[in-house]
């Protein structure tokens, strides 16, 4: 089988398995975890646009995620409809992303990271301190999930299907983005910013648009998050959230489509398992960070791919090596 056919086959199998997940899993608890994995994966894919393809590491993305969640939550609490609330949330998140981008893109590398970190902490401060708007530490409750096209999302199954549809759209948009001239030029600005500039590309604009794309999908993930939990609090805006999603991207492998999805799966499952036994999730999160940096700096997906290729080459090499040895003429 050619590698292309293999990929199409694997993708179709994955699609069918995921689409039918509520049927073969059955248990509500696990279906809910699957929903969590999918919307975190959307968030991780969004961050990967900047981290993986743009080479711009943001530590303030929780602010964009939470901006959408808070806007939707507050609009709903004020009595607006779901459509208006979600639309406003996306628009507000895009505006916030634009402001973040304009400020953070004054710099690249560590400077970019530091500025996004500072901006993220400022939004955390607003969520936490501006109690008259955000209800401070008590958070915002969302009374009901929406019913798009008359499809009620109240049950775990229904919510999973809705999340799955969004997830598939996100993966498709990422696949298109990666292959598009825009994706190629973004990778160009990552690898050779000055050369891209000399070739006449507007490096700043390419990065700015990438930031908006990233912000858009972060916002979508944030809306899914707030509908899933029906609650949002300043905890979501905290540095831990930005760090967790960055861990998803990096542990899975940056600049791959599958990496952030694998990373989100690992981190969400680990978080649920660890939280069930001990209260020390932050400790575990920190240790995973340190361990990945020390032992598998390229991430789990590229690391596994590397091992897989090495294994296959070793298998192919063996039969070819045998006749050589025979020709040596040794007994």
């Amino acid at each position, binding site marked *: 089988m050619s590698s292309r056919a293999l990929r199409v086959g694997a993708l179709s199998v994955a699609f069918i398995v995921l689409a039918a997940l509520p049927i073969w899993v059955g248990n509500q608890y696990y279906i809910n975890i699957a929903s969590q994995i999918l919307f975190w994966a959307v968030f991780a894919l969004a961050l990967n646009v900047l981290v993986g393809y743009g080479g711009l590491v943001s530590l303030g993305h929780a602010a964009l995620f939470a901006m959408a969640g808070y806007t939707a939550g507050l609009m709903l609490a004020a009595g607006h409809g779901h459509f208006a609330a979600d639309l406003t949330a996306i628009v507000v998140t895009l505006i916030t992303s634009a402001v973040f981008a304009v400020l953070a893109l004054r710099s690249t590398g560590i400077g970019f990271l530091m500025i996004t970190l500072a901006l993220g*902490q400022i939004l955390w401060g607003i969520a936490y301190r501006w109690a*008259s708007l955000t209800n401070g530490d008590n958070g915002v409750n969302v009374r009901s999930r929406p019913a798009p096209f008359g499809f009620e999302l109240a049950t775990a199954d229904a919510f999973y299907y809705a999340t799955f549809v969004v997830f598939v759209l996100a993966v498709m948009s990422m696949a298109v983005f990666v292959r598009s001239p825009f994706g190629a030029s973004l990778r160009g600005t990552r690898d050779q910013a000055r050369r891209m500039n000399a070739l006449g590309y507007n490096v700043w604009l390419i990065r700015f648009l990438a930031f908006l794309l990233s912000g858009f999908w972060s916002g979508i993930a944030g809306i899914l998050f707030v509908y899933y939990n029906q609650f949002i609090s300043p905890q979501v805006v905290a540095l831990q959230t930005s760090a967790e999603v960055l861990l998803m991207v990096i542990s899975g492998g940056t600049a791959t489509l599958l990496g952030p999805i694998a990373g989100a799966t690992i981190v969400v499952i680990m978080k649920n398992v660890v939280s069930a036994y001990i209260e020390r999730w932050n*400790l575990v999160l*920190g240790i995973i*960070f340190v361990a990945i940096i020390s032992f598998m700096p390229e991430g789990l997906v590229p690391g596994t791919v590397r091992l897989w290729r090495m294994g296959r080459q070793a298998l192919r090499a063996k039969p070819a090596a045998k006749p050589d040895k025979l020709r040596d003429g040794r007994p």
Partner: protein
Amino acid sequence: MSLWLTLAVNSIALGGLLFLLSAGFSLIFGLMRIPNLMHGSFFMLGAYFGVTFLGKGMNFFLAALLSGVAMAIIGAAIERFLLRRLAGQELPQVLLTLGFSFIVADICLMIWTGDPWQPPTPRELVGAVQVASLFFPIYRLAIVAVAVVIAIALWLLVDWTRLGAMIRAGVDDAPIARVVGIKVSQLFTLVFALGAGLAAFGGVMGAPYLSVYPGLDAEMLPLALIVVILGGTGSLLGALVGSFLIGFLYNFGQAMFPDLAYVILFLPMLLVLVLRPQGLFGRVVT
């Protein structure tokens, strides 16, 4: 004493603490290009050390010094054995220090519990001095005095000693500094230890004022970041001016617009980023 004067004194005191925190951060960032995201953790862990020493009946300044020395040793070990292996790789360094900050935060929560600790103001610093008809609390003035003394000491060290000249050479061009025989990696360890120690020292100095509680690290780190973005990386004068500026903005912002205190902190950073991206006292590195 009027409200404004109280605020001003508090602002200067907070500025002093911020300088102790961000001077090291700025040097580490400027010299080693390490975005040390565990700097807030040094501050918090140092403060917890100090609280423990104080609980054993130790003198306040001795506790602060001891905590600073302990943290300098820990900092040196982290730099020498972990960060050194990642030299020049910014992203892994960020993630490593971030990972450590989570580990430290959780360990502190385990050992010192989630309750805030607020040691009493040291006995020798209780009370106030009277100037004309105004009273100034001695403890707040002491923080400022200590910060100013350390600022002058750091300035003398960096600008007027051989060691300082070597550090500056390392900041400007590490490869060339190495070529002329300066042991830049030893300087790195030294500067990292110094920064960690200063942060811990500041944490203890500030403990009776800020108190020590889980999340203090995440609250101090962005302040150090903003100070450094404002003042310019690697610039001590920038760190000093930025610290007092942020001290004033933070206290006056909290008093006048409590809801928006964080936004007010962010405005000068925004202005500096747009008008002078290298920071107020930063140099453009070519």
